[in-house]
Every structure is written in structure tokens, then in C-alpha cells.
């Protein structure tokens, strides 16, 4: 019987470690290099000078406000919805379950086109709004509606599975101690599922911030009203390359900032628990 072949053992271990290292390196580089390339294409002076461009400022302001509003709506409406959906079984639950996932697989341009055909002034519903003098398409409201449509699945799916997997004995204990269902929900369920919900919210915000196809189809492209940052990048890329680059870098920085903030916040929560 050979002694535990220490040489071949070491050889195999180094090989598997280096292979694993290569794997991680490959994936990391593939994701990081394109982002890094953005920074290398411009200079700090150019970047700072184009930050004051009114087009950049209006796109930034519009993107941030619409994404925050979209996220707020998704959380406020989506959390109770996900809770009800997870806890009860109602007729048609399977269909609703599938519909939640629909915007994930639907191409955004198709989503935008569908929203336009429904809510546009010639649309199925939109025509009645139009008769009352309310226009939906080509407004900031349309931007928000498009963002909600494409980004909500990220939060809904996450919340739904969190509530499904949540150990109901916590809730039952609280109820036996006299807490109302609402109080239980707010003080027991939400805090314990918070980190998962927050990650879902982050994905939703990121998706809403980056929405392009549905926005340009349904809301159009009007600086200050509907020209979000992704639209400004697309238009700027062709007429003013530097502007497009600046806005792209801004988007990257914002995304990173959000991710880091969220990780710090959620880590604090875990420590306290």
C-alpha cells in the first residue's frame, strides 16, 4: 500500500486551486473589464467638465426621481401583495405566479410597445383617459409605469419566496402573545426578512434605473421630461461621445454606491439580530 501519495496529493491540490483561481479570475475579468474600459476612455477633466452639462443634470435628476418613485410603489404595493400571495391559495394563483415572471422574459421594447398600445391615447384603456383629458404616453408618468412594469418581478419574486419560506411559528407565537396580524407583519415578519427584501429592492432599483427599451417606446425621448440616463447615453453616444461616456460612468458609480451602501446597511442589521 503506497503511503498517502503526498506528492501526487499536493500536485492535485495545487492544480485544483489554480484552476479554481483561473475560473474566478476569468469571470471577474469578463464582468469588470468592460466597466473599467469606460473609465479609461475619458480623462478626469473631461468628466468633471461635462458633469455640469444641463443634459447630464436633467437626465440624472429624472432618472433618480423616477427610479425612486418606481421602487417606492413596487415596495408599498408589492410587499402586501407578495405576503397575501404567499400565505393564501386563491383560484388562479398559478396564473398570477406566471404573470409575475412575465416582464422578466419579455423583451423591454415589446413591453414598451404593449404599454403604448394599452395606455396610449389610441389605446384600449388610454382612449378613455384621453377623453377625460389625461394623457399617459410621453409623460414622466409613462417613464415610471414602464420602470415598474419591467422592474417589479425582481422584488415580487424575492418577497414571495421569502414569505413562503419564512418560519410561520414566529408569527404564530406573536399572535398567541396578543399581537394583531398587522403588528406581527410589521414587527416580526418584515424585520426578519428585511435583508432579503432589501436585496430584491436593490435589483429592482438597478433595473428601473437602467430601463431603456420600454421607456423610449412608451414615454418617448424628451430632455427633462422623459429622457432618462440610459436614453441620454444612447442619444449622446452618437452626437456627443463624451457626454455619453460621462453619463455611463455616472450610472456605474451610482450602481456601485447603491450596492455598497446596501451591503453595509444590511450587515449592520444582521449584527444587531
Amino acid at each position: 500500500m503506497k503511503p498517502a501519495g503526498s506528492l501526487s496529493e499536493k500536485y492535485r491540490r495545487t492544480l485544483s486551486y489554480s484552476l479554481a483561481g483561473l475560473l474566478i479570475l476569468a469571470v471577474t475579468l469578463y464582468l469588470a473589464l468592460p466597466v473599467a474600459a469606460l473609465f479609461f476612455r475619458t480623462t478626469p477633466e473631461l468628466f468633471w467638465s461635462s458633469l455640469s452639462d444641463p443634459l447630464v443634470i436633467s437626465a440624472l435628476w429624472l432618472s433618480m426621481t423616477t427610479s425612486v418613485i418606481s421602487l417606492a410603489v413596487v415596495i408599498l404595493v408589492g410587499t402586501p401583495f407578495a405576503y397575501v400571495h404567499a400565505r393564501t391559495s386563491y383560484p388562479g394563483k398559478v396564473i398570477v405566479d406566471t404573470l409575475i415572471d412575465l416582464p422578466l422574459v419579455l423583451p423591454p421594447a415589446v413591453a414598451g410597445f404593449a404599454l403604448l398600445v394599452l395606455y396610449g391615447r389610441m389605446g384600449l384603456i388610454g382612449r378613455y383617459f384621453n377623453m377625460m383629458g389625461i394623457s399617459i404616453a410621453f409623460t414622466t408618468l409613462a417613464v415610471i409605469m414602464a420602470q415598474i412594469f419591467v422592474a417589479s418581478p425582481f422584488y415580487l419574486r424575492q418577497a414571495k419566496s421569502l414569505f413562503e419560506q419564512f418560519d410561520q411559528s414566529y408569527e404564530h407565537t406573536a399572535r398567541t402573545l396578543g399581537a394583531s396580524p398587522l403588528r406581527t407583519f410589521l414587527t416580526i415578519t418584515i424585520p426578519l426578512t428585511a435583508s432579503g427584501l432589501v436585496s430584491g429592492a436593490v435589483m429592482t432599483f438597478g433595473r428601473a434605473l437602467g430601463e431603456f427599451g420600454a421607456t423610449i417606446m412608451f414615454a418617448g425621448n424628451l430632455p427633462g421630461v422623459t429622457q432618462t440616463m440610459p436614453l441620454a447615453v444612447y442619444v449622446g453616444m452618437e452626437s456627443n461621445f463624451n457626454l455619453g461616456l460621462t453619463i455611463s460612468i455616472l450610472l456605474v458609480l451610482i450602481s456601485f454606491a447603491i450596492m455598497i451602501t446596501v451591503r453595509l446597511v444590511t450587515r449592520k442589521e444582521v449584527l444587531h439580530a
Partner: protein
Amino acid sequence: MQKRTESHTLITLSIVCALLLVTVLFAGCTSSTTQPVTTAATAAPASPDTPVGTPVASETTAAPATPAPATTTAAAVAATSTPAPVYTYSEGNVVAYTAASLSGVSPKLAADFEKMYPGHKVVFNLAGTQALKTQVVNGAYADVFISASNAYTTELTNGGYFVTGTVKPLTSNYVIVILPANNPANIKSLSDLAKPGVKIAMADKSVPVGSATTSAMGKMAKSTEFSKDWNTSVYSNVVTYETSEPAVASKVELGEVDAGFVYESTAIAGGDKYQSVSIPKTYNYLQTYTIGVMKQSTSKGAAADFENFMLSSVGQQDLKDYGFRSL
């Protein structure tokens, strides 16, 4: 047994790793000179030793145009610019980066091109000229570039992207205002565009038709017939700046806007889909389209053939049928 599964995992790991590395390297090294996959031509071969542009004699029944003018223009083009033409099957594919306003006529152009030059095929990449220019400048492969704006043509020429001498004016277009078929805002003239509540779609100023619209609007603002106030009111009625000319037309066709600034060719080719209000020539901007063979093309023979076709009476007639204004 354990040893076998361990080495098995190692082998799988190494294969996956190798594949990933190859993918990353490939993605990083893919340069602008990536050639499109050329499909082998299946039609009867034309004589390989005649100069570029000679259509096959047996096809005269199909091709409505006479070969003679095509050959002379071909000879002229060949004499001034294209390298010694070598007709081989691999040269049969033409990638044409084409201004989006030619979307409607492109199927007809493709069919007639293949009729005139059997064995050749053309593939159109249709987008706003500004988008195509950005793609080409960043390394995209094209054999032929059809631009809707002299400004972009000049930019590309100065950048050395064209084969010298191949840049030729192709056709032209005026700007026109189209309305949905039922004219919901009841627009009868250009002055009605300034009425409050009218929704107008224009193309972004980076799009050729957008800058043409801006020029026309500028001329009208300076005139006595319209005024600066009219100009301001119209611009405040604009609800979207689209990124291509067909996008403006589709918003009008859907009835979501009351009016859109597009090319006359779209209005003519659209027929009953739109009503239109024309802009007088004194205020209008005549957009000139140009066509040119790209220096990076590896099928310069086929590319020159395509340019000849577009400039020939067949190509020009196709364009005219779809509302383009011959030069």
C-alpha cells in the same frame, strides 16, 4: 473509485476553465476586422475575367436595365478607385450600412440587385446614420455605407473610411410633416402645428432627418410667414425626439402623436397610412444621400457592384418608386 471521480472532477474543471478562458480571450481579441460569414453563391457564374460590374448576358430577360450604362459607370468606377477586380464566389456578399429611411425600399433593392448580379447578395444594416457612423468608427465591418447626411459623410471621408473616389451622391429627400390618417388634431397647415395641445414627434438632432428638420424650422422662424413665436410654440408641442426616422413615422401611424417630421419618401411610400402637410421648398432642407465603398471591405468587387446597381437606372427607379427624389 474515489480516485476516478476525483480525476473526473479535475478534468471537468479544467475543461470548463479552458472554455471560459477561450471565451474571454476571444471577446477581448475580436477586432473590427471580423468578417461576416459569406455564404457560397449558388447562381450561374459570370465570366470571371471581365471587369467589375458586367451583368451576366443570359439575364437580360430579367434585368430591366440595359447592361450598357451599367458597364460604363462600372468601368468609370473601376478605373478610378477599386482595385483589380477578381470575381470569386467568396466576394458575393455585401454588407450595406444604410440609413434607416431606406427601410421600406430595401427588400426591393435586394431583389433587384441579385437579379442584376446573380451570385451577389446584399445584407442591409438599417439604423439612423448617426448610429451606423458610431458603429463603423468603433470598428464595425461594412462593405458599403449609405449616409443620409452630408455631415456624416464628410466626417467619415475625413477619417479615411471610404475608398477614394467611390463616394457618390445617391438620391435626395425633402422634409415633410405627416399626420395620422384620421388627422385627430385637424391640422390643415403648418401654422396649425403651433396650436396648443398638438403632439408632435421629431427625430433627435443627431439623426439626419432631425437636423434637416431643425434647419427647416430655423428658416421658417426667420421668415415673415411664420415667426419666432410659431417656432417656439411648435417646439413646445414636441413630445418626443426619436432616434431614427422610421420611429417617428411609426408614432404617427399608431396615432399617438398628431404630427411627425419625416422624409417625403416615407409620406409617398406610406400612401393611405398618412395625410401630409408639405413644407415649401424655400424653407425646406434638401437632404442628399451618398453612397461609398468602405476601405476596410474585403469584398470590394461586390461592393462596387452594389454601388453601380444603386446608381444604375434600376436602383434609381426603385428609389423613385418609394418616393425618393432623384438628383
